[in-house]
């Protein structure tokens, strides 16, 4: 498969992953995808020989996203309380409003939790596959998924009270 064919076939799916990883920031997602594809382009013959070029690029994407957000996290942070995300617009239907709300909450998660949730629920990767992709243990993936889900639920469903004094942080992007 030529690099051009690969980009043609797989870039829409990879771009959507990048968009979710970048908190729906289109410019950041394009940059992320370019970075991952350039790494693959450098070694295309070998990447092809893995038999799974898309998985290879997906792994670079997820790791690059984590790195980027790690750097961004060095900037000043602000605290995000449960229910602190912007309220959904009144004229939207409930389902659409909730989806929008969930995505804002997802963007507010710590980068690693956001990455594992995107890989798990958008890319359909198993916990073991995510552990492979991020170079961590399955236990770490499980705990990140469960914490990420708990935080999303708390932000999206503020009626459920978190433990006293607990607040959620997010980096300012």
């Amino acid at each position: 498969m030529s690099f051009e064919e690969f980009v043609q076939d797989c870039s829409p799916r990879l771009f959507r992953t990048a968009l979710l990883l970048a908190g729906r920031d289109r410019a950041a997602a394009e940059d992320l995808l370019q970075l991952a594809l350039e790494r693959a382009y450098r070694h295309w013959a070998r990447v092809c020989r893995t038999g799974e070029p898309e998985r290879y690029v997906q792994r670079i994407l997820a790791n690059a996203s984590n790195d980027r957000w790690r750097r961004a996290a060095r900037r000043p942070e602000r605290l995000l309380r449960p229910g602190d995300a912007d309220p959904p617009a009144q004229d939207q239907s409930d389902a659409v409003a909730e989806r929008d709300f969930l995505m804002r909450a997802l963007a507010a998660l710590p980068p690693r939790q956001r990455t594992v949730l995107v890989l798990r629920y958008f890319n359909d990767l198993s916990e073991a596959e995510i552990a492979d992709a991020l170079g961590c243990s399955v236990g770490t993936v499980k705990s990140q998924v469960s914490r990420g889900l708990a935080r999303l639920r708390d932000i999206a469903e503020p009626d459920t009270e978190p433990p006293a004094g607990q607040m959620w942080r997010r980096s300012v992007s």
Partner: protein
Amino acid sequence: MEAFGVMTDFERRLRAAMESAVAGEQPPRNLVQQVRRRHRWHTARVGVAGAAAVAVVAVLVPVGVGAFGHGSGPAGRHRPKIAPTVYVAYPNLDKAGTILPISIATNTPGKPIHLRFSGVSVITPDGRTLYVATGDAVVPISTATNTPGKPIHIGTSRAFEISINPDGKTAYVTGFLKDTITPLNIATNTPGKPFHVRIGIFPTSIAFTPDGKTAYIGTVGDTITPINTATNTLGKPVHVGAGGDDMAITPDGRTAYVGGNDAVTPISTATNTAGKPIPISRPESDIAITPDGKTVYVGSASTVTPISTATNTAGKPIRIGRPVLDMAITPDGKTLYVANPEGPPGAVTPISTATNTAGKPIRIGASLVIAITPDGKTLYTAALNKVVPISTATNTAGEPIRHVPFGYPREIVITP
């Protein structure tokens, strides 16, 4: 959805929200051009950094005499009575892999060996065992009976490349998901403790020096890292510029040639320092060295470039006019064969190493991988739906061997 088991209502809503949030989103139209532009920028930048890095690399193990490099196959020392066999690996057949043994005596296919996935395959120097990387395990296959043994699990790092030390005692398996190298004891088929490649990610290629004392690991981090095979310790990485992860070592063991996107870099194995990069016009796709060690052939998009190892200068590129995917040199060093996967139609092209001129292409359809028998008499090439033997004496194709698995052949290995 089997990866999930039963999802909660909240998980289902989250999944739907993600899908709907990015549904219909398309990447920019000129993505390939953007990537290429970024690549040019990166290459220019790394070139400067690479020149600086050369000054600080360390001295490691000096090496001896012999011939062993990536893609060249292990040199046979012991030759047990094993029927000469060609093994063709087909990685993707309904998400499974197949190894097809073909008898060289009769050119007839044997019973296919089914595996979960068939990646890189190597045969031990004594010819007794074929090792196949199959994801999280390496499967040993007895070449006497063509039956797979118990898979040797190397963890979840996904076995990518496997290469055998010329001493025939140890194999190194690279795991490309967790950047590990796992040593494998060939006598007992047991894996040793994996160790991490610290610099660069995705260890993709391995080449041993002929004396087996040093292995070089190529990574996507544009470096190669020497490993002391006696202690499994890593030396300082040698920076080789963008794309440098495929390599071949000269038969005298003195120089490793590392292919890259726009240059081939010679590395002195005595000092582990990079020499001046030798520019090539297109990214390297395969490297082969003549048995006398005088010439390095670098295959790329549409040409093969000869490099004199005496002067480290590139000669006039030999035009093939089609992408070069795989190359093989006859044991007498007289002919270099080049596999051209694209057509119309695909072919195997012989090149005289005396004159560096291409002969008439042998048209067999898309030739994807090639290998030459140890006696140098026959070249086998695998195309999409057949394997074709080619006489190297007359450069003519024999009767195609059909009834092969459907799919892209990944590799051909031949018993020593």
